[in-house]
C-alpha cells in the first residue's frame, strides 16, 4: 500500500501517534518518579557510614552512567527471561529507565543536599526530629527547589532515552513511527512526524520548567 500523499493523510495517523506519545509519556513519568525516590535512596547510601553501602551506591552510579541505556534495556529484558522470569517489555523498560535515571538523579540531588546549611540539620536534631523526618520535611523540599531546573532537564533526557524501548516492542512514539513508516512506505515523513512529537513534548516540558523556575525565584 504505497501512499502517495502522506501529508494529506497525516491527520489520520494522529490517533496512533498520540497513543504512542502517551505511552512514551507515562513510561518516562513513571521512570522519573521511581528514579527520584531511588535517587534519594542511592544518595543516602553514598553518604552512609557503612563502607559497603557507599561502595554499592558508587558502583550503581558508575555502571548506569558508564553504559548505554540500550544495553541496560536489553539486559533487563533478556536476562530475566533467561532465568525463567518473563518480564513484559513495558515492565523491563520501566525498571531499566528508573534505575538509569536514579543514577543521574542521585548526582543531581546530591548537589542539592550538599547545599543545605549544616545548621539546619543540627537544629532538626535539637528539635528531636528523627532522621527520616529531617530528610523528608527539611532536606527534600529544599533539594527539589534548588535542583528543579536540573531535574526538568533530566526528565527531558529520560523522554529522549525512552525512544530505544521501541526495540523491545513497547509501542511508544518511536515504535509508532516505525509502524507508520512500514505501512505507508514513507519513512522520511513518518519518522519526521514522530520526531516532531518528541520535539513538542520536550519543548513544552522545558518551557514549563522555565516558567516555574521564574515563578519560584520571584516568590523567593
Amino acid at each position, binding site marked *: 500500500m504505497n501512499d502517495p500523499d502522506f501529508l494529506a493523510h497525516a491527520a489520520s495517523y494522529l490517533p496512533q501517534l498520540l497513543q504512542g506519545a502517551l505511552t512514551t509519556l507515562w513510561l518516562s513519568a513513571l521512570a522519573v518518579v521511581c528514579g527520584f525516590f531511588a535517587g534519594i535512596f542511592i544518595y543516602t547510601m553514598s553518604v552512609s557510614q557503612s563502607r559497603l553501602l557507599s561502595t554499592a551506591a558508587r558502583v550503581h552510579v*558508575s*555502571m548506569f*552512567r*558508564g*553504559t*548505554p*541505556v*540500550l*544495553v541496560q534495556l*536489553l*539486559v533487563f529484558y*533478556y*536476562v530475566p*527471561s*533467561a532465568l525463567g522470569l518473563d518480564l513484559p517489555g513495558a515492565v523491563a523498560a520501566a525498571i531499566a529507565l528508573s534505575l538509569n535515571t536514579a543514577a543521574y538523579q542521585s548526582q543531581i540531588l546530591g548537589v542539592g543536599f550538599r547545599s543545605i546549611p549544616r545548621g539546619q540539620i543540627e537544629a532538626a536534631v535539637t528539635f528531636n526530629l528523627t532522621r527520616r523526618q529531617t530528610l523528608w520535611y527539611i532536606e527534600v523540599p529544599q533539594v527539589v527547589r534548588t535542583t528543579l531546573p536540573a531535574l526538568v532537564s533530566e526528565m*527531558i533526557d529520560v*523522554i*529522549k*532515552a*525512552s*525512544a*530505544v524501548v*521501541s*526495540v523491545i516492542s513497547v509501542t511508544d512514539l*518511536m515504535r509508532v*513511527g*516505525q509502524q507508520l*513508516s512500514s505501512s505507508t512506505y*514513507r*519513512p*522520511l*515523513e513518518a*519518522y*519526521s512526524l*514522530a*520526531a516532531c512529537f*518528541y*520535539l513538542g513534548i*520536550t*519543548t513544552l516540558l*522545558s518551557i514549563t520548567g522555565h516558567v516555574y523556575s521564574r515563578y519560584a525565584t520571584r516568590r523567593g
Partner: protein
Amino acid sequence: MMNNLITILPSYGAAVLVTLEVSVLAALLGIAGGFVINALRLRFTRSLALPYGFFVWLIRGTPYLSQLVVIYFGLPALGVTMSAVQATIVSLALYSSAYFAEIFRAAWNSVPHGQLEAAQVFGISRWARFRVIELPQAAAFALPLLANQVILVIKESSVASIITVPELTMTASGIVSATYTYIGPYALLIVAYWLLTQAVSLLAQQVSARIPFLRKTS
C-alpha cells in the same frame, strides 16, 4: 561458561574497534562542527542567532534514534543514500555538534569580559588576546564537558545496532541469539562499554592534570 567467554572475546575485540571508529570519527567531526558553528555564531551574532537557536533546539529536543532513522531510512527519499556506518557517523556528528557548540559557547562566555577590555587597554593584539587570555581559560572550562560529551557519543553509538552496524551492542545481541547464552555476553558488553567510558574520563583527567593552563584555578 568461561570457555564460551574466551571464544567470543575476538568478536568483541573487532566490535570495540567498530564502536571506537564510529564514535571517534563522529566526535572529532562533531567537535570541529561545533567549534565552527560557535565561531560563526560569534562572528555573525545578529543574523545567525535565530538559525543557531533553531538548530540546537531541533537536535537537543529529539532523541538521537529518531535523528538516525530520519537520516538512514528517510533521506534516501530525497536521493541521499548512505551505508549504515556512514549514516551513523553523519547523524552522530550532527547530533553531537549541537552539544559541542553549546559547550564552546558556554566556555567562551565563561571568560570575564573585563579581562578582554583590560587587555585591549594595554594594547594587546586581537590574536594575542585570543591565544593568551581567551583560549586557555575557555579550554580549561570546556575540557571536562567535552570529555563528558565524548562519553555520551560512545554511549549513543550503541543505538546504531538498530540499523545493523556491527558495533558492540549488535555483536553481543548476535552472540546472544546464536548461542542462547545471555549472562556472559551481556556482562562482557557492560564491561566493555564501562571500560571505554572510564578510559575517556581518565584520559581527560590526565590531560588536565598534565597541562598547566588546563588546571582550573578557581
